[in-house]
């Protein structure tokens, strides 16, 4: 079966000379829940915008369900739903009208039942007849997601969908997206909330400076991650151990936090044994996707 999205050798140089993407290869299978992470300026939005055909590529190939975006621009656009990072809504129309127009662009003549369901599921039903100008930031965000879903796309691409959405609504939003995923929709998302990606995504790509720094199953990335965070509370001050760990001391040396390389665990534990009489409390945490992210993007402390 052809994948939902195949990207080969994708590069993008903007007119100002900035290289946003430098040879990206990615494949997202049908029905996958895939997250793209990366620091600001890593090329996440550029990547997504090229797939949605709102930014031109400099070189490389993109196929959506086996169809090249160059050879089949209309058919591939039809297959995907896309929310850009910047929210922009037509100020002339109400929420329901915006969705009716958007359904029409995709050739759907009567979409009332699905529009009602979208309004319900995205908590927009009470605001259906309000002008889009009168909506709060979170509502506007949800309306852009409803627009992307108006034609029931097989591939849903969400660029920072939860920015500005409060916690309770974020949960209902993710519940809805999970349900779409269960029903067979392929989901690709970028997010700043890395814990969201860890919780939701089956597979993750981490971009760094326009290249794929890592791409693997979320579990595999965590399992192969070679560092563990630790926090030690002490009865008396102890200097920070040199060599095998990085981090800092707090509370006049009575608290040590940092991380150690798993490969040098022996040194860590023998050092720990040496100060055991002073230890009040010890925590070693499971690795988080955020730690993997910070290491790969060179931002760990």
């Amino acid at each position, binding site marked *: 079966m052809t994948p939902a999205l195949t990207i080969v050798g994708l590069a993008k140089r903007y007119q100002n000379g900035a290289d946003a993407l430098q040879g990206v290869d990615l494949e997202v299978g049908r029905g996958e829940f895939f997250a793209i992470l990366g620091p600001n300026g890593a090329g996440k939005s550029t990547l997504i915008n090229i797939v949605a*055909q*709102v930014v031109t590529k400099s070189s490389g190939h993109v196929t959506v369900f086996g169809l090249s975006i160059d050879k089949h621009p*209309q058919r591939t656009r039809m297959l995907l739903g896309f929310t*850009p990072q910047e929210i922009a*809504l*037509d100020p*002339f129309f109400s929420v329901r009208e915006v969705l009716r127009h958007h359904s*029409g662009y995709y050739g759907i003549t009567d979409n009332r039942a699905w529009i009602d369901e979208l309004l319900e599921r995205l908590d927009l039903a009470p605001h259906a007849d309000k002008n889009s100008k009168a909506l709060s930031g979170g509502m506007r965000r949800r309306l*852009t997601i409803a627009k992307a879903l108006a034609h029931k796309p097989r591939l849903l691409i969400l660029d920072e969908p939860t920015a500005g959405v409060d916690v309770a609504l974020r949960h209902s939003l993710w519940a809805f997206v999970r349900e779409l995923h269960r029903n067979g929709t392929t989901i690709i998302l970028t997010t700043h909330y890395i814990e969201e990606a860890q919780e939701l995504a089956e597979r993750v790509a981490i971009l760094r400076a326009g290249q794929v720094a890592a791409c693997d199953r979320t579990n595999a990335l965590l399992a192969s991650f070679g560092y563990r965070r630790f926090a030690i509370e002490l009865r008396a001050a102890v200097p920070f151990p040199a060599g095998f760990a990085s981090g800092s001391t707090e509370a006049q040396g009575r608290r040590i936090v940092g991380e150690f390389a798993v490969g040098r665990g022996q040194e860590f534990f023998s050092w720990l044994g040496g100060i055991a009489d002073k230890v009040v409390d010890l925590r070693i945490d499971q690795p988080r996707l955020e730690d993997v992210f910070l290491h790969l993007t060179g931002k760990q402390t």
Partner: protein
Amino acid sequence: MNWYGNWALFRRECQRFLRVWLQTLGAPLISAMLYFAIFGAALGQRIGDAGHGFSYLQFLVPGLAAMGIIQHAFQNTSSSLIQMKYLGMLQADLLALPLNPAQIVLAFTAAAMVRGALVGIGILAISRLFVEFTIADPPLLIGSALIMAAIFGLVGLLTGIWAKNFDQVALVGNFILTPMVYLGGVFFANSMLPAGWQKAPLLNPIFYLVDLFRRGLLGAGQTPPEGALIAVSLVMAALFIVAMLLFRLGWRLKS
């Protein structure tokens, strides 16, 4: 081919101007009435005959209608596109849509033609309250009105694609379009000009459109219609193709 999508974009573009009808349809009717008040009550009698046995006010009617069609067809597309740029709507509400460049240009142009036609009909209807006239050649009147609206809808579209902000659109409107319209035979016949200047309007493309439209209404014009009709049709086709190519390239639309 996604023709319903094409229809949906056309419908949005029409609803956009209908939502603010007072400004998009009401305003041109008010200004047409003001022109009639000024020329009809105050100046018209002194100008006298406009040639072919028509009074100056009769001559003015198709001029004002043509001016309304040109300006409002231009405004519909240029303001729509620049507003989409300004609000950041281009990506999700235009470029990502499953419509090909020809369909996008067609939808925008057709909506501009609808607005131009409504303004033209409104001005002719209001004029009839002030001036006596019958329509001499309905097919020519309708045909030239639609070509005129299409051409300036396309000019507006190209302006919207090119412009980076509202100021640049206003620049084209105020410094190119309005002078060309005012000097394009809306208010005067070439025979009214001083001897050395009578040929000058022939260099202005708008002159031929206004003259065709006037011939459709009054049955008399200043230039032979056949050549002009072919020329303006070719201009319309050329502008359509240029707009289509710019959408295909994404010039000033896609980074």
